[in-house]
């Protein structure tokens, strides 16, 4: 007799949603198995973070969206978040389902698939079946299991061999109804020698009660492929953000992650590159700004299997008020990964005496012929820097701002879409200016 875990989802509602979406049999089976696992598995064990005290149950239920054909018809709250210009390929999801998509013909001519997940499970079932929940597995813990059981929406990206997608693929995920589920699944498959950039924005607005956002990102980068993934999250205080992102990087392939965590609520952000192939490489850049009493647990991880594989990770956190950040950087080099090289840096800037920040660099190395390095720091705004800037006539406030922006600059300036970079700057400003 095992203890029954009370789950925020049940078989009937999941099956009903799956049937309504016309999901294939394999997916329904996967969901049922995952739901069973969710009942047995524990929550993930996070370093110094009592995730069990967070809101972990408010999943909402799947609600059908109301698609529109013109950007003009989108609700005002959505419209103001849209990229101002450079809309090349865009999918907009509101609550549980996609409501708008614009994708140039050029893409389909190249054989590129960029579509919302509900469409993908119907139209590209076989392709999806090969990869869906193969990088992040339902068996890992209750959060991934629950995701597999209840996820709705998200996007599927497939880039055929040697195809280079010029413009970034963009997506906007917005939630404005806490009763509707908001757990998208993003799957990017880049075939050999292909090149693609995906950029999204996850936002909540006007929520009246609490909500869990349990999202998974899976990236498969085949030999010599390059995938750049950038995301900016800005979810309200009542939203628990559980984001698990993982890439499998094959021979000579490269994956770059750029993450802006601008949430106001609790957040678990776990981003991993599995450097499977020889000569594979990855780059992680993360910034977050903590405000209020929010708790952040930010992990970047590179796991080296391939010989001569390289990884680089940078996390920068600015902490205000009574916020807490646990920032983990894990470089794991497996036996046999000769010539591997890993670098990581975690820096936390504390702006308030009540804020808390931990930087935990970890190098776990099982191979001799490797090089790895780490740097970590937790500190306040440097008084000498402040004095130096003020001695040139810059006010204390302005000098502090310049120092903080300088601290975040290595990530902000890397966002591949200008309008999102501006948005990120704006949100950094908002969080710092509160």
């Amino acid at each position: 007799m095992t203890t029954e875990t009370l789950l925020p989802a049940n078989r009937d509602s999941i099956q009903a949603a799956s049937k309504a979406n016309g999901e294939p049999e394999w997916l329904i089976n996967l969901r049922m198995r995952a739901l069973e696992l969710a009942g047995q598995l524990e929550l993930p064990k996070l370093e110094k973070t009592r995730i069990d005290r967070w809101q972990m149950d408010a999943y909402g239920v799947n609600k059908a969206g109301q698609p529109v054909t013109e950007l003009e018809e989108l609700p005002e709250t959505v419209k103001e978040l849209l990229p101002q210009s450079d809309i090349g390929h865009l999918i907009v999801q509101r609550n549980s389902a996609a409501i708008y998509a614009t994708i140039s013909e050029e893409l389909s001519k190249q054989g590129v698939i960029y579509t919302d997940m509900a469409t993908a499970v119907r139209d590209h079932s076989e392709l999806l079946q090969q990869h869906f929940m193969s990088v992040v597995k339902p068996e890992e813990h209750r959060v991934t299991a629950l995701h597999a059981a209840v996820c709705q929406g998200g996007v599927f990206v497939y880039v055929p061999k040697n195809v280079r997608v010029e413009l970034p693929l963009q997506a906007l995920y917005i939630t404005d109804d806490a009763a509707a589920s908001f757990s998208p699944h993003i799957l990017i498959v880049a075939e050999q020698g292909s090149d693609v950039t995906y950029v999204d924005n996850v936002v909540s607005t006007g929520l009246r009660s609490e909500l869990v956002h349990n999202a998974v990102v899976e990236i498969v980068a085949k030999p010599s492929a390059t995938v750049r993934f950038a995301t900016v999250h800005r979810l309200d205080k009542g939203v628990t953000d559980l984001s698990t992102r993982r890439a499998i990087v094959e021979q000579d392939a490269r994956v770059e992650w750029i993450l802006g965590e601008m949430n106001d609520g609790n957040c678990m952000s776990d981003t991993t590159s599995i450097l499977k192939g020889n000569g594979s490489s990855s780059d992680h850049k993360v910034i977050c700004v903590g405000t209020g009493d929010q708790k952040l647990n930010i992990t970047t991880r590179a796991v080296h299997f391939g010989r001569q594989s390289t990884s680089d990770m940078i996390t920068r956190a600015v902490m205000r008020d009574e916020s807490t950040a646990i920032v983990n950087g894990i470089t794991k080099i497996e036996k046999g990964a000769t010539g591997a090289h890993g670098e990581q840096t975690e820096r936390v800037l504390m702006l308030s005496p009540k804020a808390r920040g931990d930087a935990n660099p970890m190098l776990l190395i099982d191979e001799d012929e490797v090089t790895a390095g780490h740097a970590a720091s937790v500190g306040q705004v440097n008084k000498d820097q402040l004095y130096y800037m003020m001695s040139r006539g810059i006010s204390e406030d302005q000098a502090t701002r310049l120092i903080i922006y300088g601290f975040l600059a290595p990530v902000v300036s890397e966002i591949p879409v200008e309008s999102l970079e501006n948005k990120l700057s704006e949100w950094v400003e908002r969080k710092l200016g509160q």
Partner: protein
Amino acid sequence: MSNVQFTIQGLKAQVEGKEILKGVDIEIKGGEIHAIMGPNGTGKSTLASAVMGHPVYEVTDGSITLNGEDVLEMEVDERARAGLFLAMQYPSEIAGVTNADFLRSAINARRSEGDEISLIKFIRQMEGSMNKLSIDPQFMHRYLNEGFSGGEKKRNEILQMAMLDPKICILDEIDSGLDIDALKIVADGVNEMRSEERGFLIITHYQRLLNYISPDFVHVMMQGRIVRSGGPELAQRLENDGYEWLKEELGIEDETVGQETEEFQMPMNTTAPKY
């Protein structure tokens, strides 16, 4: 007739309860170059930092005025905007803030809102000033002092000074760590800024710099006071004969101030790796 008048009177300052400045008087008018010389540890750099308002230095007595305004009442940034500039011995490195962004913020801090300097005008000015100081234009987009060599940092200080157009320039050991070519460039930069509208206070350890920037007044500092003032010939004598004659004349044995006299002790309580 100059309209710059900078006056330090009876200035006393302490660090962590230790008095370093024991009553300093200097008066600088526009067009004048004053040099403060003295051995290490006599309070020269403390004077520079106390004038600029470094938070570690607490002024306990005396006054500083610039054109009649009370400098000690001002915050650090207000002092700068009032016209004080301190070229520092050890400028801070600030990652993520480019030289150009930093200088533009500093210039705009002196202008009213809505009257900010245009980007094009600023770039042109900055390029011009960099050119004069033989600074690679690429440094405009480098992070402030980050990874700069000692000489590059010093030149960057002079660049800032040139662009911010201060009334009183204080140079704190600007010559330390400079080779002779860099020293000439820095001296040229200073000489070019000489004007009736500006006064200089040059703090140095060596007479060398004064071969290139000729001072009007030379002051010697010991034990936290100015113990002798004179013209350029005083600097020359110090270069030739050192400080001993002066110490003898004044009956000073230890010229330093606030220095720990404790002997060096081998740290015994460290944990060495065990084999």
